[in-house]
């Protein structure tokens, strides 16, 4: 076979594979949006959910999903940043480091139901945090840490060593070189890691059933005292997220409009994830441009 034909065949195969991925994605998102968007209304987004009667909304679930993401990132990002920096810049290349690497990868492949039950026993029961957003955020941190740590580590490692040498040759400490020179270059990769882990948080249900709970008690959006049980900011209240809500109305929902709620919620979830991804990319690019003077 001559190289020209071989090349054409290879090109064709690659295009077909890419097309398959794109088609599957388009079909899935298209189906969810087409079946869901007709059920989305201002009323649906701004009213509380109903257990028995039709016409319930998803106000609290939507807020809980976003609040849970924020809390999870507040807990997991600093830990991941520290361990990512350590693994990329400080850790000696030896068996102990690769043991840590392997452990992190194992953590990311744990079944979420196992992590959920573990967090239920340890945090909900033993530490008496109860069914709460905080328990949920801790459980999700277990999933988040490997993704975030890995992406931070890899983005730092992809910065050429010449940059570190340049920093050192100017009498900068290693820490200053990392924070001032290496880190800004790594921002786009780190943003990608945050987006990946955020997708996991938005989509997770199994681990949250046992930690953040399945109930959405009435909360007040005008009460800004995070220690008040009725406040929307209280991290100790049980909080059903959108993904858990979808699971619940599909399995044990008794409202007559369960399937409409489920379709509408799925569409909202997809749209929120898209908005978050685009927003994170935009913010990351803005931050990168600002710190590296590139336009």
């Amino acid at each position, binding site marked *: 076979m001559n190289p020209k034909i071989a090349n054409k065949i290879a090109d064709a195969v690659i295009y077909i594979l890419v097309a398959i991925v794109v088609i599957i994605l388009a079909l899935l998102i298209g189906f969810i949006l087409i079946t869901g968007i007709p059920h989305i209304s201002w009323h649906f987004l701004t009213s509380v959910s109903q257990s028995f009667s039709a016409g319930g909304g998803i106000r609290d679930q939507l807020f809980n999903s976003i609040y849970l993401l924020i809390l999870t990132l507040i807990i997991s990002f600093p830990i991941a940043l520290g361990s990512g920096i350590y693994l990329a810049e400080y850790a000696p290349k030896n068996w102990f480091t690769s043991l840590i690497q392997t452990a992190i990868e194992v953590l990311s492949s744990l079944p979420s139901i196992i992590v959920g039950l573990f967090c239920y026993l340890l945090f909900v029961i033993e530490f008496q945090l109860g069914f709460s957003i905080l328990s949920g955020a801790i459980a999700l941190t277990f999933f988040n840490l490997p993704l975030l740590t890995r992406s931070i580590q890899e983005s730092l490692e992809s910065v050429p060593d010449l940059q570190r040498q*340049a920093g050192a040759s100017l*009498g900068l400490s290693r820490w200053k070189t990392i924070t001032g020179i290496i880190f800004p270059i790594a921002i786009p990769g780190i943003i990608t890691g945050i987006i990946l882990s955020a997708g996991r948080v938005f989509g997770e249900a199994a681990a949250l059933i046992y930690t953040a709970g399945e109930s959405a008690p009435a909360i007040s959006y005008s009460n800004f005292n995070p220690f008040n049980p009725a406040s929307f900011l209280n991290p100790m209240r049980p909080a059903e997220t959108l993904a858990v809500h979808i699971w619940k109305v599909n399995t044990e929902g008794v409202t007559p409009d369960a399937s409409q709620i489920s379709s509408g919620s799925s569409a909202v979830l997809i749209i929120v994830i898209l908005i978050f991804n685009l927003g994170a990319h935009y913010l990351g690019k803005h931050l990168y441009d600002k710190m*590296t003077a590139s336009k």
Partner: protein
Amino acid sequence: MAFKDYDFNDTYFATFDDEKALVTKDIQVYYGDNHAFHDGNLSFSRNKITALIGASGSGKSTYLRCLNRMNDDVARVTGQIMYRGMNINSSDVNVYEVRSHIGMVFQRPNPFAKSIRENITFALKQHGLKNKSELDKRVEESLRGASLWDEVKDRLDKSALSLSGGQAQRLCIARAIAMKPDILLMDEPASALDPISTKNIENTLNQLKKDYTIIIVTHNMQQASRISDYTSFFHLGHALEFDRTERIFTNPHVKATEDYISGNFG
């Protein structure tokens, strides 16, 4: 390609009684058990350019990187490096301080992913210089010193990554001299550049030697003969000869040096 066998005891080190900026005594470099560089005993005259020449693997870059302690993390370096009466190879010396007196320019241009201005001011600010007008002055001075000012003065806040290879390397030189070091170490600074950029860099070095002591590693013998005052020949981890550049290139004492510069090497 195998080298001919040369006697590492066949050496010649000319001495000159001008003022020395840096003197090394008995420098040895070990990578683990591998004794990579032997007996570095060289003196570098103030405000002169000294070229270190030799084939790949001769140890000239390894030796150069000892001089500002860049080998700290990768190798064990013994011996003394005397700078202003102090042994800067001692472990209790503040290595960051050393590097702010002994600057370095690398083989490949490595500007930071920052604006042209910030490339120069970033390290200055970390070393405590905060005054805006003083920083601006340093930016202009150092860019002029590196013969880059006229080309970039209208786009100081644009990314340094937009510069050509030759401009980026001159920016790296500007970044090094902005620290006002005594000594500039250059590790084949023009080897990744085209001939015109190379010529620009060489002209820049000639300007700089009024204010700086320059030690330059180069593969390019014409470059060494064009720009340097003194030359040292390195072979397989040994410095074998040191003399005035014109003597090295016209009348070397050591057989290995003669073979190297005449192309009969190996």
